[in-house]
């Protein structure tokens, strides 16, 4: 382990530091590398790490592992783009905008946030009015329901911001069809029509959210919808998006704050930028006018960072109390108390509720 980290057991900060300052890995010994690779793998960021360390001299054994991760990420990119193309072909006859979200959008738009990124499901946003036709077209093209449970199915349809997940019977890939970016039960209700209207075409027939909305969505997903699982990766997405957009748009942060405020997600975006700055040195800019944006550290940020970096050198999830607290918080945000009680009761009777199954 490098001298600076010798007296502290490694956690997610080891990964954040390697991503922020690739040269900092030069001081790692075998034990430090082993911990870093285990943490990166557990956070599904080994491909991202491989990309970031591309220019840095690493030990041969590490180089082989990162080389494998880079090739694996490249294959993941090819598969993700192919899956997006398959959805485009299935939905083209509807004449609606297909807006890619998250990882697939990053690689389709060739953004830095997509470099080396692991991509799981295909997430798309479509107009709510087109939802039934989208569902029918996907079922017609070989996608099938994943959740056979009638309660889950009904819950999704009534309260969620997406259809119940579908899986393609030949390619074994999931698609999440969203009609807005937060559950309908959440207290914040972003304007989905505006998200769709401002989307940009990144490939023929495939769209992505506008730069500002990409960041707003990433922050909303992280702080208003989830228990911060994968937070270190989501914050990295936001860091890379902001850095890249700020280069081409000098006033990017102003328009980001404006957009966040329109969507009712100012607090989430500011929280994201504060944490990004503390983890990744993201050069976000605060303002006093026209809107007041104070990006100074808050005491509560420490709690969030404690959760986001809760990982040990064996890749294990640590800090169970903090994790549980954020898990409960995620449900609290997602639905009103009476409904939450009813939902958890139903889930508990089925033996499913808990931080692992969500």
């Amino acid at each position: 382990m490098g001298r600076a980290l010798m007296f502290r057991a490694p956690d997610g900060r080891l990964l954040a530091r390697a991503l922020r300052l690739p040269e900092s890995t030069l001081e790692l010994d075998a034990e430090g590398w082993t911990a870093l690779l285990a943490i990166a793998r557990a956070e599904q960021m080994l491909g991202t790490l491989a990309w970031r360390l591309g220019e840095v001299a690493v030990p041969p054994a590490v180089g082989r592992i990162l080389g494998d991760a880079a090739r694996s990420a490249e294959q993941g990119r090819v598969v993700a783009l192919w899956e997006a193309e398959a959805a485009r072909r299935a939905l083209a006859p509807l004449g609606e905008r297909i807006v890619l979200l998250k990882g697939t959008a990053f690689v389709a738009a060739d953004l830095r946030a997509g470099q080396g990124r692991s991509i799981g499901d295909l997430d798309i946003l479509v107009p709510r009015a087109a939802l039934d036709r989208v569902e029918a077209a996907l079922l017609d093209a070989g996608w099938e329901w994943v959740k056979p449970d009638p309660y889950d199915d009904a819950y999704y349809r009534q309260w969620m911001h997406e259809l119940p997940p579908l899986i393609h019977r030949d390619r074994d890939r999931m698609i999440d069809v969203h009609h807005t970016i937060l559950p309908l039960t959440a207290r914040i209700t972003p304007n989905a029509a505006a998200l769709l209207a401002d989307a940009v075409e990144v490939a023929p027939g495939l769209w992505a959210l506008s730069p500002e909305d990409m960041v707003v969505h990433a922050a909303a997903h992280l702080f208003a919808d989830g228990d911060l699982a994968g937070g270190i990766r989501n914050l990295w997405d936001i860091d890379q998006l902001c850095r890249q957009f700020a280069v081409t748009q000098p006033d990017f942060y102003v328009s980001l704050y404006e957009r966040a405020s329109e969507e009712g997600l100012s607090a989430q975006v500011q929280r994201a930028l504060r944490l990004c700055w503390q983890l990744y040195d993201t050069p976000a800019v605060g303002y006093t006018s026209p809107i007041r944006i104070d990006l100074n550290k808050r005491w509560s940020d420490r709690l969030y960072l404690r959760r986001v970096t809760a990982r040990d050198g064996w890749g294990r999830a640590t800090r169970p109390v903090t994790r549980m607290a954020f898990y409960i918080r995620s449900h609290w945000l997602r639905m009103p108390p009476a409904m939450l009680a009813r939902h958890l009761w139903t889930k508990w009777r089925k033996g499913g509720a808990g931080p692992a199954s969500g």
Partner: protein
Amino acid sequence: MKHVFSVAIGPVGFRIGSDWRAPIAQLETLYGAYPKPAGDVPDFTVRLFAARPWRRVLRPSVMIGGDFVLPEAAPLPLAQGLLAAEMGMNLQMALGQRRYLLLHASVVERDGEALVMTGVSGAGKSTLAALLSLRGWRLMGDEFALLDPETGQLYAFPRLVSLKNASIATVAAEAAEDRFGPLLEGTPKGTIRHFVPDAQAITTMTQPACPALILFPSFGFEPAARDVSPSEVFVRLTQASTNYVALGERGFDALTRLVTSVPARAIDYPDTASAIAQVEAAWAAR
């Protein structure tokens, strides 16, 4: 974790952490002659842990974790901790290996050329590999053949040979007692006993070999042999590979190259003598 053991098996390094001493002590004994991972940085991590703190001592049962996990994996009793470690390592390979195309097969080598034996569980590939290794062949592995997409060469993965049920006695009749691990009874796969590869297999384990023959052995039938067409070999090997899909085009190219350049035979055998004779005959005629 409290107890740790690191080992290189062929070109792959592992780190195994455990809440208990016993499985680590067994690994230290059985893998005593193996080197440490290259540069002391393992490719994969395996964790053997108790589901709840009190399960370390109270009816201890071993959960298998690591870089890659199966969500529904059932725990094993502590007495089968060694098996849990082996399953954990196999799991990392099956789910996480991206450098080599992984074929579920045993491999032995002679004069720099490799014989690949694949088939369903119970076909006898582990047993045959162990028996051939007692007859001058180099054991390259009883579970996975590692096909390098860049070179078309096979790399060795000579982990402990996992002998099951009746095959334990078959191999024990020919090998010294000190080459065996503890007898593990009542495992999900029946009775298991691990067989330690010989010194030659371990000292030469980083040397690749050129694939020369693919065999599909089937135990329990009258002696018979037939050629297997490249197209059939291709389909059967895609089914015998855990990472063929994940490797994408590299996997397709590597497998195409293998099946179009290497002959394949299916052999049926009723007993050891017949199996060895048929393997040698197929090898001579390759």
